[in-house]
């Protein structure tokens, strides 16, 4: 899909990345979105409620559809716009809000119901029986809501600030070498 000889990419530097477990190649200067488009990937995500297929619609920060989860080690950054992410070698991106896969998403069945559900239908539903709210409806709704997921594991990225604790803090010089034990 690329126009030969044009663009701001460096065709001499090939970068490898994965999206949804599949490996692709792009060039230095690509954004994740441009690299996906160059590899003919049109289906990037699913819509929030009805899980309709979604693809890239913009070239910048206003991108509403191409939201992916970026993974680096244990760190996971959900809801990242593919149009805003510069491609780097080893980039790992995963699609969001689709299970078991983007192409075959079980919850896309919601779209079958869409013509029968008016806007704001959820204000008048999920009310009976009462006990079902806490144990059936709400857990299901919470699980279906949201797009990306946070990683609950410790990430080893570098941060500017830390809230660190120690038992003894010494800021004095150490002529006897005591602290080198």
């Amino acid at each position, binding site marked *: 899909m690329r126009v030969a000889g044009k663009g701001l990419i460096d065709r001499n530097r090939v970068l490898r990345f994965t999206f949804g477990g599949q490996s692709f190649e792009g060039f230095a200067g690509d954004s994740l979105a441009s690299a996906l488009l160059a590899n003919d990937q049109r289906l990037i995500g699913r819509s*929030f409620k009805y899980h309709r297929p979604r693809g890239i619609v913009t070239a910048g920060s206003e991108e509403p559809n191409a939201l992916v989860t970026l993974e680096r080690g244990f760190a996971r950054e959900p809801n990242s716009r593919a149009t805003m992410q510069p491609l780097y070698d080893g980039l790992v991106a995963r699609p969001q809000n689709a299970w078991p896969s983007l192409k075959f998403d079980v919850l896309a069945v919601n779209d079958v119901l869409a013509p029968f559900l008016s806007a704001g239908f959820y204000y008048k539903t999920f009310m009976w029986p009462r006990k079902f709210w806490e144990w059936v409806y709400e857990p299901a709704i919470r699980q279906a*809501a*949201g797009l*990306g997921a*946070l990683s*609950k594991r410790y*990430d080893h990225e570098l941060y500017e*600030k830390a*809230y660190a604790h120690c038992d003894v803090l010494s800021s004095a010089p150490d002529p006897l070498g005591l602290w080198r034990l």
Partner: protein
Amino acid sequence: MAGMRLPIESHVLQAFVTEGLKPCIDHVISFGMGHFYISQSDKGGLVFGGDLDMYASYAARGNLPMVEHVAEAGMTLMPMIGKARMLRSWGGIMDMTPDGSPIIDKTHIEGLYLNAGWCYGGFKAVPASGHCFAHLLATDRPHSAAARFRLDRFRSGRGLMDEEGTGAQHNLH
């Protein structure tokens, strides 16, 4: 409007919501030392906030120093939320009383009743406070559960309900 001065100062309390995320926090977590609370809405966004901005304000928005302070408290408590994006932030106007407890009482003006001064705890108390206030309006006597929320407790010094034990002073709650 009625020419009354009340023991209330209006301060601003900021609140924040992140973008929608898959369930990761299933109850309300309160971090006392950081003046921080967080929970997750059914739509997936993390709802969190912290302390007052600590100056009188009706602007319904706060200032950036408190945003940074709240974010620091949040990151201290659970670093994983650092990867989420803050989608919305706003400020609410908190009617603060000197001892941090509300006022449900009649005033010296005939027919004028007060249910105010809930500071930042009013939303949770709405059903009970409404019930007690209705009782006061209907019978002209306070409900037994709200009998201590008198307007004159600051003048008399009796019956102050000071949850932090810091005394009845405006900027300490």
